């Protein structure tokens, strides 16, 4: 009789050990992350402290059996030292962070008015406008980036149009410039900025802005004194969602950016596939992860304060 009630029995077993059903629900995603995030991370970490060799796999094992049960553990930090020595790496790190930061600011400047407009539009329009923001996700990311090539290239849509109108005689070189790369990144990541901002602005109580105006505060000033601080959580969330993936962005700089767009994602690719130096490539990946963990932690802390500050 117990067979059909397997789940029920499982629950009873869990409860008998002092756990609630909630534990089970949260345990599943945690196990998933453990399996597919932590395990690969540890593998990459392991490769990053090993030495390169021309073989398959292209790195030496950490643990070697010498003889008679003696085990040798070889951990090398040379790869990390190499990252510091060769200016290529820290320059590309810096370049990635600068590019991501500029893209994030551009997304914020474009996304905030958008989110504000959507949140303050008539409820009937709101869902339609939100749908339009999310619509690009229905097309493949790669396809959308290729579409930009068609728009920006020398005999692309923009240049052809401008030349047909007689505004320019020679095509403007846009493709494979930083300009094209920023357009691609801002275009691709804008929805990740707009959605959390929308949620934050939509929650904002309009009577607070009325109160500010009533107390003698002009609208522009009220925006910076009331709206921005109260939508801070959305601003931070949006910035993180844009900044973090933009730092490691590989496809857009490769397709739209110029040859000098030295992004860390590209360096990583070259180390792995062109130089086949897995240990250095792993060290690059780990260093990038650590570089990104810091802003995530800042974000987490501010979220915690938000939760503590506004019940």
């Amino acid at each position, binding site marked *: 009789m117990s067979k059909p009630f397997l789940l029920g029995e499982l629950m009873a077993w869990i409860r008998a050990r002092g756990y609630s059903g909630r534990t089970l629900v949260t345990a599943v995603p945690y196990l998933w992350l453990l399996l597919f995030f932590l395990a690969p991370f540890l593998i990459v970490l392991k490769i990053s402290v090993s030495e390169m060799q021309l073989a398959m796999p292209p790195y030496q094992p950490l643990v070697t059996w010498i003889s008679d049960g003696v085990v040798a553990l070889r951990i090398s930090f040379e790869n990390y030292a190499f990252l510091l020595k060769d200016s290529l790496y820290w320059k590309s790190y810096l370049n990635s962070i600068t590019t991501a930061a500029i893209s994030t600011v551009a997304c914020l400047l474009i996304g905030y008015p958008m989110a504000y407009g959507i949140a303050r539009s008539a409820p009937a329009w709101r869902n339609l406008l939100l749908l339009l923001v999310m619509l690009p996700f229905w097309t493949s990311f790669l396809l959308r980036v290729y579409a930009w090539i068609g728009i920006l290239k020398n005999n692309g849509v923009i240049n052809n149009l401008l030349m047909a109108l007689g505004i320019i005689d020679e095509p403007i070189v846009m493709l494979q410039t930083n300009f094209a790369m920023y357009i691609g990144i801002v275009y691709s990541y804008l929805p990740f900025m707009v959605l959390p901002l929308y949620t934050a602005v939509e929650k904002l*109580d309009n*009577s*607070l802005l*009325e*109160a*500010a*105006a*009533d*107390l*003698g*505060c*002009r609208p522009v*000033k009220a925006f910076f*004194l*009331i709206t921005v*601080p*109260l939508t801070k959580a959305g601003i931070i969330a949006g910035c993180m969602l844009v900044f973090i993936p933009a730092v490691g962005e590989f496809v857009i700089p490769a397709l739209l950016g110029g040859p000098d767009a030295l992004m860390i994602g590209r360096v990583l690719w070259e180390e792995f596939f062109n130089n086949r130096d897995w240990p250095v490539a792993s060290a690059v990946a780990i260093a990038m992860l650590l570089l990104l963990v810091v802003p995530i932690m800042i974000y987490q802390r501010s979220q915690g304060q938000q939760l503590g*500050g*506004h*019940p």
Partner: protein
Amino acid sequence: MASSRPDQKNEPWKDPGAQPYVRLEKLTKKFGDFVAVDDVSLNIYRNEIFCLLGGSGSGKTTLLRMMAGFERPTEGKICIDGVDVTNAPPYERPINMMFQSYALFPHMSVQKNIAFGLKQDKVGAREVDDRVAEILKLVRMEQFAKRMPHQLSGGQRQRVALARALVKRPKLLLLDEPLAALDRKLREHTQFELLNIQETLGVTFVVVTHDQEEAMTLATRIGVMNHGEIVQIGTPSDIYEYPGSRFVADFIGSVNMFEGRIVEDEPDYVRVASKELGATFHVGHGVSAAPDATVWVALRPEKIVLTRARPEGGEDNRVEGIVAEVAYRGDQSIYLVTLGSGRQMRVTQPNTLRQGAGDRVRWDDRVWLSWDSSSPVVVTQ
């Protein structure tokens, strides 16, 4: 129920030469086809507490929001202290408002919330501190200056909101349902506190409320609103004792309303025969109505005397009935008495004797109801 405010002794609205402090001229506000406020003209005098009283959708809040500057009137004019502010934005008006939700800035401490308005006026830091401290003392919130709004109780938030609106020393303070979010005990207490603060600072108040008791306690005058119009303006006792229409009589307090026909019309009294009552009202005031016209007589439940024995005197202003319901309220009891016509009459009697003492009126008792000829009010609309 009506308070005796010192201001009531000098009633500026009765003085034709008095300058109104706030003047609303033919104000109309339309939202599409819907007329929220319909041709309202109103004078409010310095130091008044003027209550706009009405049900939901009566236009009272829209009227208040037009005074604050959040809504532009479709037609009409608003003058404050002789200055036309009809088209001035809210941040340029010498008016502050206390919001129903209090609208305290959640990311600022009590101190910063109150200082916000002063900082907008570029008041010096020293003076800001002094004035914030002064107003915090007035609302007795000194020890909470560093708290954040979410760390305060509803009553404390209400005081902070009041302090924030008052600290700028506005010419006019608008209060939108100031006490609605408080529980009953706290509300009563806060009402008297509001009165004290208003007297101390001498600020003119306009209060919007749907709570007639609140309006009665606070107001020097009440404007009763219905369907976007002000149907009657008067002191609380005027409104209660001399309602001008069936709507006002019904809206303020409870009332027994009887349809009738004027059978005798003299300058100092009228007699109204009512089939619903099964008797004749003798009303001690003259009425300007056509003879034989249908009128309504309003009679407050507390003005009726309930006795077992037939009262002495003539045939008017008395009726016999059977007690259908008794509701014991502690300080008073409410009786529903079924008359011969089938209509029920609501009667309240103070419980001057303790329950159990004396001869108590019970269900199904046959009783006599009578009242003085000064009690009933005839309304013609």
